[in-house]
């Protein structure tokens, strides 16, 4: 800091942003909400807040898959496929097996895809991007085959999922009953468990983790199976929100889930980030979506702004983490 006192405050802000990116993210979120209120006075009410949270929850949950795999330098592009498959299988099996057994059975393909990802990444050393892209395609392909054999039997969403997806407690969405414990568990895992520490360590330096005695394949198996379970859970909740299923139910959330993790400050190169940032990232993306709809932006324009924001945020993080 030889440049003197003028630089100091900026440097300090830079360091603050780097060490606590969540502060900057919350500022951005509030700024977007204020902007929305200015553009359309009176829009911010309990109903709007409830709806925003309701749609941010599945995005934040799917983004947990990306966040946790990104800690190790990976990614889970099969998350949306797994969520879709789980929702679809659940909805078609519940009429036969009842609610509990239908939901339980629906999580089986999720676990299988998770194990497949763990095998590919941990043992065959396939890059996670390719591995999860491939396993997601395989999964969706299997789902299409499955659909032909079950089309006639109809589908149903269990009441408990509809209650979670569409119900409200006071004015807040019931999805929070699922999401608050879920988020608390994720934050606990990343900060207070050996598993969480290893995720960051593997992402920061896989060789160092091996040197410390970690058999990395074990970690990858556990990680990708956990990620698939989270994706499956997201699919169940999303089916409750939408109250129907389709062969591409959760697909539109895939790239936003990656974006939410990146905006939230998780490094795609591994070793850095927090799920707390991802949650705020998911809220920012949801509010941004409302804002762009409100501006009656055509779909192309929305995508341009979306992409631009993701690139800008990533560039800022890169600068912050490189300097000092």
């Amino acid at each position, binding site marked *: 800091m030889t440049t003197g006192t003028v630089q100091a405050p900026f440097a300090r802000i830079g360091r603050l942003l780097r*060490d606590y990116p969540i502060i900057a993210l919350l500022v951005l979120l509030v700024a977007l909400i204020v902007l929305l209120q200015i553009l359309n006075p009176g829009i911010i009410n309990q109903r709007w807040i409830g709806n925003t949270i309701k749609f941010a929850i599945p995005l934040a949950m799917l983004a947990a898959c990306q966040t946790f795999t990104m800690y190790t330098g990976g990614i889970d592009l099969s998350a949306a496929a797994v969520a879709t498959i789980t929702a679809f299988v659940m909805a078609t099996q519940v009429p036969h097996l009842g609610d509990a057994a239908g939901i339980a059975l629906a999580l089986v393909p999720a676990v299988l895809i998770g194990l497949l990802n763990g095998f590919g990444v941990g043992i065959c050393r396939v890059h996670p991007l390719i591995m999860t892209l491939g396993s997601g395609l395989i999964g969706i392909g299997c789902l299409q085959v499955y659909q032909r054999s079950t089309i006639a039997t109809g589908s149903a969403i269990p009441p408990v999922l509809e209650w979670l997806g569409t119900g409200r407690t006071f004015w807040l969405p019931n999805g929070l009953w699922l999401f608050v414990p879920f988020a608390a568990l994720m934050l*606990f895992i990343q900060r*207070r*468990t*050996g*598993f969480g*520490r*290893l995720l*960051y*360590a593997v992402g*920061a*330096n896989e*060789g*160092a*983790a*091996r*040197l*410390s*005695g*970690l*058999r990395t394949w*074990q970690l990858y198996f*556990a990680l990708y199976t956990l990620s698939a379970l989270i994706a499956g859970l997201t699919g169940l909740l999303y089916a409750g929100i939408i109250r129907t299923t389709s062969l591409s139910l959760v697909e539109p959330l895939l790239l936003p889930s990656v974006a939410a993790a990146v905006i939230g400050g998780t490094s795609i190169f591994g*070793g*850095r980030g927090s799920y707390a940032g991802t949650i705020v990232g998911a809220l920012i993306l949801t509010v941004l979506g409302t804002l762009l709809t409100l501006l009656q932006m055509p779909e192309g324009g929305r995508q341009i702004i979306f992409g631009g924001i993701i690139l800008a945020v990533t560039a800022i993080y890169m600068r912050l983490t490189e300097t000092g």
Partner: protein
Amino acid sequence: MQPNPPKTPRAILDAQGVTKSFGAVQALRGASLRVGAGEIVALMGANGAGKSTLVKILTGALRHDAGTITIKDRPVRFASPAAARRAGLVPVYQEPALIPDLDVGQNLRLGATPVAPFRHWVDALGVTGLRMDDAIGHLPLATLRILDLARALAMEPDVLMLDEMTAALPTDLVDNVLRVMRGQADAGRAVIYISHRFPEIARICDRATVLRDGVTVGDLPIVPGVEEEVVELMLGQRMTPAVAATGRSAAKGTARLSVAGLSLGSKLAEVSFDLHAGEVLGVVALEGQGQDELFEVLAGFRRAGSGRISVDGTPVAFRHPADAIAAGLTFVPGNRADALAMGRSVRENIALPGFAAPRRWGPIAMQAEATRIGAAIDRLQIDTRAQGEVRRLSGGNQQKVTIGRWIAHGVQTLLLFDPTRGIDVRTKRQIYELCRDLAAQGAAVLYYTSELAEVPQACDRAIVIFGGRVVAEMPAAEATEAALLRAAYGLAVAT
């Protein structure tokens, strides 16, 4: 320090007063090297003397800060390795610069090497049956080194520079190489010969230029008996420091770690030694003599070709570092960047081995962890002002973190690979003391060092490895730098 070098014929390469700094570290403080037409000059120096920096400058990989370099009386300053080649200086490095996925002919075309002279030199060097469509990746290392040399010769360089050219070669090929080099010199060219092998230097070199601490300290004609003088020059006036080790001989009986007949390809040959509890055993070797492979085998990173490793009398076989750790063998690698999660905190880095086994993946007892890691930090006196990110620590403190990681989890056998490389004197002292303390508490320490002066300070006993073999063993009291260096250069030692 030395009388003026004997007058040589017209200099082809003349480097005078070359300096080079990397940040605060001055790698070269005035290196000079003069090679005349028809001369073979050996470039010598202990580890860290600045040899490789000088070589990189001469071959255009680095640029010097000050000093002059002339080739045939024209001052030069190479912008790239290609520029150095165009000026007539062609190096042959230890790692053959050939692309494994291409065949011989394609590799030649890449460098625009004329084929006929290349074939001539391949024959002259004694490699038979080579076809131009042989894939490089399928040829043995010795052949590749010969091809690399033949390619360099085919370019008819004014100055040829060979870096440990004979390291991977069988003796008949070594003879051919030496003969061809002599022929080059007799044809009026200049050769710079970098080697750790005195017998070869004595056979073909005319002079030896010796570097120490980045300065050329001597330029001697090769005459019988000059080896002693060269060794002294490499060591300088440094006095052997007081022996910290009391020469205690560790309790005998079953060795904590026993290595018998360990072999690995061309890297390790029949390495055997015992390491007892309560002992610090020094390992001394020049670069690339198999010490890296030895530590990698002991740490579970690679498997030996043959031989036996026993821990407390029980034979062990490691397939993964986790196996070695389970047997009590914990490894601190030479490169700190390999061992640390640089972006994570001191605490996380030290605690890391505790979570490796899946049964330890659950909730962390944060309070107990803080206590344990605090104790390790105190014991090693780690400066924790920048503990949020290990990357912000000094090199010495980073090294303490990699060692402290094992201290916090209980040390039985510690494998330290050059733990004091590039760290300050005070931290070095602390590491010696730590080794002694650990040994006193019943741990066993295997301590490879590239700094010979450390051996009497940190170790009870030392073994010297040369060409993948243990060539000498001596108690710390006798492990003077001169004795170690002689053994490390493969000169006869009375053991």
